[in-house]
């Protein structure tokens, strides 16, 4: 991999390339900040208390809070008591979306969280560790006057985590508990226009179901979905980025195959990074507009996971291959210690994701966090993944430290070396430092923007211009890592130019042989090994 384009490029050209990349970077930020709306919207829904007036509940009947055939409502539960309506006949109904609106496939996903308004009553106190049992069902229709079609039905348990701010005396009766919100539902595609959620709270005293859950006043839901405008901008970006990365990938691989030698590990890793980037880029989400593919959310997670794993592996291998010590690596097996944690960590997260979003494909109301065992399992996976990540970063930091130590060692002995070898080392050092610099810059940008988007409100107003910070963060960072991969493949592709073009009168003892050697492997050539390797090379040939 010696003699990459970056080493042979003049500073002027390098600046031009850098400038062009910077322009694209700024464009990526502006696209998100100025064109796109905020990435997601949260809509608050208050459930309407409907009465299921039928005598027996053989078939599920859908109760609609408003619109045609709306249900018979009650205002509060005092009314239910006076009218002698049983708990099992009360259905909390939520129509999604609100009147005069419709959902669209561009929303990509919907997730709902549930908030319970529980009032304190002296004779109906909320028990410690109370659990609420919900009989939930979800239906859809595409026309206001169609019948509802069932999507899912489940009986779910949720733990109530509530605190009460004031003393539990007669005086504070009627005040509300402060309850944590509960995960309610997640679906990975929004293929229909209208959705309906019906929630029942069945009471069974003998089995202790829904006993001691306090006086529930209201059930509120908050629905979160991606904004259509953001989806469009995102798709456009993906559609534009896919061919750009694909083209540079083809160009890069052609360069490598044009060379006489077999590709070295680092070149393969860079290519693999390109592949994983393209895998993220390919806008298969376009299909979600036409098809009801609920697994898109899970698929997106997997694609991102693969890319992150690839990127982390690349950094390790890049450091290793620039170590400039005696070890012959050039094999993935030589990095098992460092790549191992990445593999274990991403596998853990994959299993966790399958347990959460994978099961949600079958039952959208499922959440791993609702059960004791599930929570422990999930925490275990996340902790293992966290430990792996820490381990990885320790290794990485140690390797970077080693490289720098070797660099400083080499730099002192540089003047004494032969020109080819000196150029080789200078090339290695420059390449390493350059990548180190842009990687750190990219990582810092990511972290800074992440923090900024977390602490600020969704948008900044600048006179008439509104900048959507969160959208800018997403498009900007996404664009940035694409440019990173692009630049990597472009600048670290093997160069056609040789060191020795104007070096024929150099003081090299070995010339073409060493050059061949230097371009074949970036591992260390020092003293006797050099001769030995040369001999081996000849023997192989």
């Amino acid at each position: 991999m010696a003699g990459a384009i970056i080493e042979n490029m003049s500073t002027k050209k390098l600046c031009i390339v850098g400038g062009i990349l910077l322009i694209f970077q700024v464009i990526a930020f502006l696209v998100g900040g100025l064109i796109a709306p905020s990435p997601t919207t949260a809509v608050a829904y208050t459930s309407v208390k409907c009465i299921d007036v039928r005598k027996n509940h053989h078939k599920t009947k859908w109760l609609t809070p408003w619109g045609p055939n709306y249900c018979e409502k009650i205002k509060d539960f005092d009314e239910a008591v006076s009218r002698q309506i049983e708990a099992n006949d009360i259905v909390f109904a939520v129509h999604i979306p609100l009147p005069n609106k419709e959902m669209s496939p561009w929303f990509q996903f919907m997730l709902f969280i549930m908030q319970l308004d529980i009032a304190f009553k002296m004779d109906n106190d909320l028990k410690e560790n109370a659990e609420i049992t919900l009989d939930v069902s979800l239906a859809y229709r595409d026309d206001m006057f169609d019948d509802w079609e069932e999507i899912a039905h489940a009986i779910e348990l949720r733990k109530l985590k509530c605190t009460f701010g004031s003393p539990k005396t007669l005086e504070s009766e009627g005040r509300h508990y402060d309850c944590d919100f509960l995960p309610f539902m997640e679906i990975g595609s929004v293929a229909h226009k209208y959705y309906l959620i019906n929630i029942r709270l069945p009471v069974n005293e003998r089995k202790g179901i829904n006993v001691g859950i306090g006086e529930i006043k209201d059930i509120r839901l908050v629905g979160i979905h991606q904004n259509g405008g953001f989806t469009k901008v995102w798709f456009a970006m993906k559609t534009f980025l896919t061919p750009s990365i694909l083209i540079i990938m083809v160009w890069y691989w052609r360069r490598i195959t044009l060379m006489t030698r077999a590709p070295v590990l680092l070149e393969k890793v860079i290519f693999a990074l390109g592949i994983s980037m393209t895998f993220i880029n390919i806008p298969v989400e376009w299909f979600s507009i036409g098809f009801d593919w609920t697994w898109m959310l899970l698929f997106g997670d997997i694609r991102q996971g693969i890319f992150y794993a690839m990127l982390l592996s690349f950094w390790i291998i890049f450091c290793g291959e620039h170590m400039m010590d005696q070890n012959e690596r050039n094999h993935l097996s030589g990095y098992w210690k460092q790549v191992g944690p990445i593999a274990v960590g991403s596998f853990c997260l994959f299993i966790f994701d399958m347990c959460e979003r994978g099961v949600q494909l079958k039952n959208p109301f499922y959440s791993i966090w609702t059960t004791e065992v599930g929570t422990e399992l999930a925490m275990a996976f996340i902790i293992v993944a966290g430990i792996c990540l820490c381990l990885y970063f320790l290794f990485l930091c140690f390797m970077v430290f080693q490289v720098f130590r070797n660099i400083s060692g080499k730099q002192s002995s540089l003047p004494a070396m032969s020109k080819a070898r000196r150029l080789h080392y200078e090339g290695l050092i420059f390449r390493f430092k350059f990548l180190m610099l842009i990687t750190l810059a990219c990582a810092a940008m990511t972290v800074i923007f992440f923090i900024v988007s977390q602490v600020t409100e969704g948008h900044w107003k600048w006179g008439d211009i509104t900048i959507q910070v969160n959208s800018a963060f997403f498009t900007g960072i996404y664009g940035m890592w694409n440019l990173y991969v692009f630049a990597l493949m472009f600048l670290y592709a093997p160069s056609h130019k040789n060191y020795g073009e104007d070096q024929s009168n150099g003081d090299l003892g070995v010339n073409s042989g060493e050059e061949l050697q230097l371009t074949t492997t970036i591992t260390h050539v020092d003293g006797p090994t050099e001769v030995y390797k040369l001999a081996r090379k000849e023997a192989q040939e």
Partner: protein
Amino acid sequence: MLDGHVLLGWLSSCALLGLLACAPRPSAAYFGLTGNEPLTILPLTSEMEEAAVKAHYKVCDRLKLEKKQRRMCRRDPGVAETLMEAISMSALECQYQFRFERWNCTLEGRYRASLLKRGFKETAFLYAISSAGLTHAMAKACSAGRMERCTCDEAPDLENREAWQWGGCGDNLKYSNKFVKEFLGRKPNKDLRARVDFHNNLVGMKVIKAGVETTCKCHGVSGSCTVRTCWRQLSPFHEIGKQLKQKYETSLKVGSTTNEATGEGDISPPKKSIPGHSDQIPRTTDLVYIDDSPSFCLMSRYSPGTSGRKCYKDKNCDSICCGRGHNTQSRVVTRPCQCQVRWCCYVECKQCTQREEVYTCKD
């Protein structure tokens, strides 16, 4: 006579509200507990079940609104229902907050009408709780899908839909604030009393705004916080009522600093009046009042007085009986106890008999 007053439960006294209509007021008509309409707590649901298209027109007419308010009410069947709910919510909360006070938020027509003619602290509270109730009820009605036009309502229908598909709509609270501001009308210019009322209305809305909590949910890759969505939610109306009650206790008296004869008065706290600045409404979130409140001890135009009121010994008997002392009556009562309640609709109780002391204020 005592038995009649023992039933102090605020729910039961509510039923009394609808009995009397009150006289029209001189200053600008507001809404809710401060409006012209009789405080009839209508049976909301049965009213709205009628499929008749213009059913809500009737409700709007009964509310005795101003011209502009009536137009806003008729615009959407949901508005009428929400206005009704706002009234009952504010009334219940007012009575709940003042259940231990001398003035126990008696809203019977003539007392309320006389109160509203003056600028007492109590009047200030009524204004604030009315506007707060409306803001709260409106936001809630939006999220329950009761209103046809809610957020995203600025543009015509098609653009509306496009706005929703492109970037979602604003939140309910913003809409309800806008609605209430429009509903209550513009800031009055000259009349001191009208400006005090307007200020107190704004205080109610500000308390709602200050009680808004932002909650966030992370939903990035594997539930990480790379993607986070936040929304704002209202605090329960009980909290709002509690805060307004505190504001009532610390309310400021304002007087006119300039010539009353010309009618160009300024509202400002008497102590720190700034002569140079005209049009000074104290830029605080304090409630303001003009007239000192009566004692509410004896029967007057403003309240039925506290004679015969049930009080709590060691708690408020001294204060609400105004030093007249209280009668103690010992009775044996049978009442439900050790109740087992399911979350709704069914209560299983034992009947317990116990001796109970009832304290009522002397005449």
